[in-house]
Structures are given as structure tokens and as C-alpha cells.
């Protein structure tokens, strides 16, 4: 009897373990497989490249650190390959260095030395840091030396990376936020799928109609925003609001954060009101989670990066609509700030390597490279001529939603607000904004949450200014 009881306990505990384990298997395997394959693919391409280099050692080699994984990595490696084959003087070696943050952390330890990569891809909010670091050579010096015509590039993108009339880095992958919505759900709720809500009030009303409840459970929320600082920055900028003082840090060093003004408050009030009405879905701070929520119809509208549009449209089991990001009816629509990343050139390395980097940067601007990049990833083409390429036109026929993202950018009014803020402590500022957002979702007063975030941001900015004097 005792043994039987014991056996029962053993099996029961085992069952609990097995359920946990079998879930693992289901959830994890496909992930690992693709990761492995990717890695293998990486290794093989790297090996090929090293072999090639050994064969032709008279070529100048320049290392290129990037932060693109998945389809972005495949595309970037293909473009690099094309460049390496298009001429016989230079070889570019692409190296994946993890996320933007990780790549930047690594760069900090080698910056300014011989070991630094010739090119490093850094996200937009790292701009100020890179300029102040002293590790980089502004690309403007090459542009001036060669008389290179930069005006062929998209003006709104150049605007972001131009500081004190100098183009410091070469724009490369640029994205903006857009609003994605479920057209089928719109029809179901009696809304016009071709006329998406455009102002905060309209969003609130539409979300009310789109929300589906089943008892206490909400089956579908009306609207969601990822808990990520970038979206708040964009929603403030589209109303013409600034993030930090001194014209977003563009006319002089920023000393104070001002995102707790009326524009910021309107955004937070929108979130607060919808959250209390039960029409706002909170899916955390992970991009994949909010995309999954949209795909599984747990939310009907959400904000995403333009770089995610193609993937979402293709994977969704329903019609997906793409719209401009909403603005407050009390303000005018100003457009969007450029997100994404740009390419920086190291100083302190051989001039020949810098030349190789420069040639590669020019190659990247070509309409053909940009067209391929735009199609593969959904990032913008920084060279508008790429949009006339045949392959882009074909792709747009297939996925017309991609066009909306380009139009939104081209309609943007250039101003300090849409140029984006320039501060060296941006990563920390974003964390503060995310915390404020999460606090509002837990019922904190919007103004109080914003004031707290501003106070913390100011402290870090002041400390950074003190330390770097």
C-alpha cells in the first residue's frame, strides 16, 4: 500500500515535470532550428569570404559591423557580396555584432584604435553619442573632398543625421512608425476599412467599437501601443511637440527634457482613458509579442515600424490596412521622425580602409542596392530613385501597403520636432518613458508619471554634461 502511494506521488510529480518539458519542446524547437540554420549560413558565408580574401591579399579589407539579423542580415550580406564582386580594389567583411546596443557597447571598447571596424551601424538615438565620442570621421569630409552629390538622397532622412550643417554618418536603414489595422475586424464592427481613424478621438471611438468582450475576458482590444519610447517620441513629434529643450538639442546642447508638455500629456491621456475604458490592450515591451497579438486578432489596431509592415501583411490571416500614425485634433499633423540606423566611419584606422568604407557607402546609395534593400526588409530607400526601379514597382503591386509608409515620410514637414531629439543619454530617457507608460497603465496620473520621467531624465542629462565637460 505504502509503495503504491509512493509510486503515485512519483508519477504525479513526474507528470508536472513532463507537462513543463513538453511545452518547452513545442515552443522552442522551431526557434532553435532556425537559429542554427542561420548560424550555419553565417559561418559558411564567412568562411567563403575569408578564403576569397586569402586568395587576393592585395585587396584592401574593411570590416563592417552591423546589427541586422534575419532577413536584414541575408540582404545586407548579399549587397556586400555584390559590392565585393563589382570591383577588385576593396573587400568589405560584414560582421554581425548583436543588437544595436550590444554593437555600440563593443565599439566603445575598441573605438579610436587600430582594431576598430571601418564601418559601424548605429541606431538613430546613438547619433549624439557617436558625434561626441571622438572615435569617428564625419562622412562630410569625404563628401567635400570628392564633391559627391548628396542631394539625390531623401531630404527628410538626411535632416536627421545632419548636425551643425555636417552630415556625420551615412543614412542606411531608415524606418518610421505606422498604424496597422485589421480590415476584416473593421468590417465586422461596421467601420469603413478604407477610412481608418486618424485623430486621437477617432481612435478612441473606433477602439470602442472594435473591442470584443466575453465576460471578464477581452477577446479583442481596440488599440495597442508597444511599451517602447520611440512611439511616444513619434506621437509627440507628429503634434509638433519637442522632446528636449534648445530646439530638440539641435540649436544648442539640450539641458532639459520637455516631453511632459501638453503634447506628451495628450498622448498619455489617450492611453490612460482607453486603458480605463478597457479598449487598450497592453502586450508588453517585446516587438514579437505585440505582432503576435495582432496576428491572433487579440488587438485590432497597433503601431509598428515600417520595417515590419511587409512581414505582417504577408503573415496575417486577414486583410491588413496601413495608415499614418494618429495625431491630436488640437494640433496639426507634422509627420514623423526617422528611426532606424546609419553607418559611421571610424577614425584612427588606415586611410585605405576609410577609402574602402567610403566606396562601399557610395555603393549602398545606388538605386539598385536600395531597391533590393527596400524590398527585402521594408526599410526605406534612402535614395528616392530606387522607388522607380522595376522590382520596387512590382513589389508595391503585390504589397500596396508599403507605399503608405513612403508617402507618410515624404509628406513630413521638416521642423525641429520632426528632426528628432539629439541627446547623448537617449537610451536612459527611453527607459524612463517606458516606465512612465507602464505606470499610467497601472493607474498613475498621466501628468505625474510624465513629470517623474522628465525629472529622472534631467538628472542623467545633467550628470552626463558634467562628466563630459
Amino acid at each position, binding site marked *: 500500500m505504502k509503495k503504491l502511494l509512493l509510486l503515485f506521488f512519483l508519477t504525479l510529480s*513526474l507528470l508536472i515535470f513532463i507537462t513543463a518539458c513538453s*511545452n*518547452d519542446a513545442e515552443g*522552442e524547437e522551431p526557434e532553435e532550428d532556425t537559429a542554427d540554420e542561420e548560424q550555419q549560413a553565417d559561418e559558411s558565408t564567412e568562411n567563403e569570404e575569408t578564403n576569397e580574401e586569402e586568395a587576393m591579399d592585395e585587396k584592401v579589407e574593411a570590416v563592417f559591423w552591423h546589427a541586422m539579423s534575419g532577413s536584414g542580415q541575408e540582404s545586407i550580406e548579399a549587397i556586400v557580396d555584390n559590392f565585393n564582386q563589382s570591383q577588385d580594389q576593396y573587400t568589405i567583411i560584414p560582421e554581425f555584432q548583436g543588437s544595436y546596443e550590444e554593437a555600440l557597447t563593443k565599439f566603445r571598447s575598441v573605438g579610436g584604435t587600430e582594431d576598430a571596424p571601418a564601418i559601424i551601424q548605429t541606431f538613430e538615438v546613438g547619433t549624439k553619442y557617436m558625434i561626441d565620442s571622438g572615435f569617428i570621421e564625419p562622412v562630410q569630409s569625404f563628401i567635400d573632398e570628392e564633391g559627391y552629390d548628396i542631394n539625390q538622397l531623401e531630404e527628410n532622412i538626411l535632416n536627421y543625421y545632419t548636425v551643425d550643417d555636417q552630415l556625420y554618418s551615412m543614412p542606411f536603414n531608415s524606418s518610421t512608425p505606422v498604424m496597422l489595422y485589421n480590415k476584416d475586424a473593421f468590417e465586422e464592427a461596421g467601420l469603413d476599412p478604407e477610412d481608418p481613424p486618424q485623430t486621437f478621438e477617432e481612435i478612441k471611438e473606433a477602439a470602442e467599437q472594435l473591442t470584443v468582450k466575453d465576460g471578464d475576458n477581452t477577446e479583442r482590444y481596440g488599440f495597442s501601443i508597444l*511599451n517602447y519610447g520611440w512611439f511616444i517620441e513619434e506621437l509627440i513629434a507628429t503634434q509638433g511637440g519637442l522632446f528636449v529643450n534648445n530646439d530638440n538639442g539641435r540649436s544648442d546642447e539640450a539641458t532639459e527634457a520637455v516631453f511632459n508638455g501638453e503634447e506628451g500629456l495628450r498622448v498619455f491621456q489617450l492611453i490612460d482613458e482607453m486603458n480605463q475604458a478597457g479598449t487598450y490592450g497592453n502586450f508588453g515591451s517585446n516587438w514579437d509579442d505585440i505582432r503576435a*497579438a495582432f496576428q491572433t486578432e487579440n488587438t485590432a489596431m497597433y503601431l509598428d515600424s515600417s520595417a515590419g509592415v511587409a512581414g505582417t501583411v504577408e503573415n496575417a490571416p486577414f486583410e491588413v490596412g496601413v495608415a499614418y500614425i494618429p495625431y491630436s485634433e488640437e494640433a496639426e499633423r507634422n509627420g514623423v521622425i526617422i528611426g532606424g540606423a546609419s553607418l559611421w566611419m571610424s577614425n584612427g584606422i588606415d586611410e585605405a580602409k576609410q577609402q574602402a568604407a567610403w566606396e562601399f557607402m557610395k555603393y549602398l546609395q545606388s538605386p539598385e542596392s536600395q531597391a533590393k534593400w527596400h524590398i527585402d526588409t521594408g526599410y526605406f530607400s534612402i535614395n528616392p530613385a530606387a522607388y522607380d526601379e522595376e522590382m520596387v514597382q512590382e513589389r508595391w503591386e503585390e504589397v500596396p501597403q508599403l507605399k503608405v509608409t513612403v508617402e507618410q515620410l515624404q509628406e513630413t514637414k521638416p521642423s525641429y520636432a520632426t528632426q528628432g531629439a539629439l541627446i547623448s543619454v537617449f537610451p536612459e530617457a527611453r527607459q524612463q518613458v517606458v516606465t512612465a507608460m*507602464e505606470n499610467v497603465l497601472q493607474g498613475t496620473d498621466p501628468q505625474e508619471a510624465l513629470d517623474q520621467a522628465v525629472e529622472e531624465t534631467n538628472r542623467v542629462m545633467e*550628470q552626463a554634461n558634467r*562628466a563630459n565637460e
Partner: protein
Amino acid sequence: MKSTAELQEKSVTKIDTKWRFIYWRSAILYLLPSIILFSVFLFYPLGKTLYLSFFLTDQQGNANVFVGLENYQYILQAESFHKSIKATILFVLYTVPTGVIISLFLALLANEKIKGVGIFRTIYSSTMGISVAASAVVWLFIFHPSMGILNQLITSIGGTSIDWLLHPNWALVSVSVTTIWMNIGFSFLIILGGLQNIDDHLYESARISGASYFYQLRRITIPMLSPTLFFVITVSLINAFQTFGQVDILTQGGPSESTNLIVYSIYREAFVNYQFGTASAQSIFLFICILIVTILQFKFGERKVHYQ
């Protein structure tokens, strides 16, 4: 006579000091390898951390503005650091006792002599072989807000779905559950080892005198197991204070900083915000906390430990 005695005494002390020096020298020689390793990998970083905690660092990470105790003052009055301390203490309380009790329970089960117990032992200790990152990713899927199996299970039996990782009150619980699950393997294995070391004669005598199972558990198993339990508790406690991987993958310290454990907060300050000064001050604070807890544990806990 007196002088010879003095002389003798002097030479004795002389010889004594000479021998002492020789002993000391060979002792140092024996210790040298570990002293060098410890200095390079422990004492130097510790000293550097202490040094950095008195400075502000610029964008290259150089310490260039001496601020004295300002970093310490700041962290002690900052609300977010208070939240970190609170979260860490709660986390330790959630994970350590539960983890040890569950492992003890499993080890007692798996210690019985029945057929096929080896399979159970292997499976119970298997979480030891899974890396922090892999198991955290698994749990990430289990807790997933829209596709997670846990919420599907709850709603299918008619409950309300729970924001496992998205609600401040639940997030810490979710991270704790993950941690307990991950740590069970190790604790289970150590406790099982301890159980097998207990002399069978003790149980035999107890059975002859007619002691019940629970009486045996209380009077023989637990006291004999106390050195092992002490070790497991100390190690789990230190591990809990130093938790990082699960937090990074599951919640990144959110929501509303409810899972921003001290080690994660240090990582964020240092490698995301590049504030090495504040990060170092937090590290020193954590070091002192763990030191105090461990000393207290040795002082009070060890009294209850029965060594054979």
C-alpha cells in the same frame, strides 16, 4: 645562571622567528597560484569597482569627475533603487524557501528504494542541464500574452486570463516560478546526495522502536541532513541575489520596474546607460548586503546544523 637562561631564551626566539619565516615563505609559495588568480579575477575588479563608485564616467567610460559619496547618496534616496531592493528581497523570499522545500520533497520521494527510481532521479535533476537562457525562453512562451499555454489552459476551464509578465504584481511571481523550476535540479541533486549519506542503522533502530515515518523524518532525516540543507540554502540565497538571465529575457526589469532586481539594475546602469559610477555604487551595496546575509547565516544558521 641567569644570563645563560636569558641567552637560551633569546636564541630560542631567534630560531623561532627564523623557522616562522621559513614556514611563512613556503605557505605563501603554496598559496601563490590562488593568490594570483584571485587578485586578477576578484580583488582587482573589486578594487576597481570601489574606485569607480566615487566617480562620474564620461562617454569613453573613463572616470573623470570625482564626486565622493554622491553616487551612494543618490542610490540610497532614489525611488527606483528602493524598488530594486524591495523586488530583490521579495524575490529571495519567494524563491529560496519554496525551491528548497520542493527539492526536499522530490528528493525524499526519489530516495525510496523502488524499481525504476533512477529514471525519476534523472528527470528531476534534468533542469540542471538546461541553460538559463533556454529555460527562460521556454517560460516566455508559456507566459505569452496571446499564445501562452498557461492562459489558454485557464480560459478553457473558464477562468480569467492573467497578465503573467505584464502586471507588476504577477511579473515577479512569474520570474520566481521560472527561477524555482530552474534551480530545483541542482538543489534536488545535492539533497538527494545528502539523504543517501545518512546511515541506514539509524532508521533500522527507529523502526525497531516503532517510530512513524514523520517522526523519523523530523528526528533523523532533517537533523542528519542539516549540513546539506545549510549548504543548499546558502548557495540558493546567493544565487537569488545575483539573478540576471531570467529577468533579462522575461521582463527586462519591467513592468513599472517591478522585476528590476539589483543585478539587472546594475547591468542597465552600466551597459545601457553607461553610468559606471552609479552602477559601481550599486554593486558595492549589493556586495555588502550579501556579505551581511551570509555572515548572519553562518552565525545563526550554523548553530542549528548538526555535523556527524
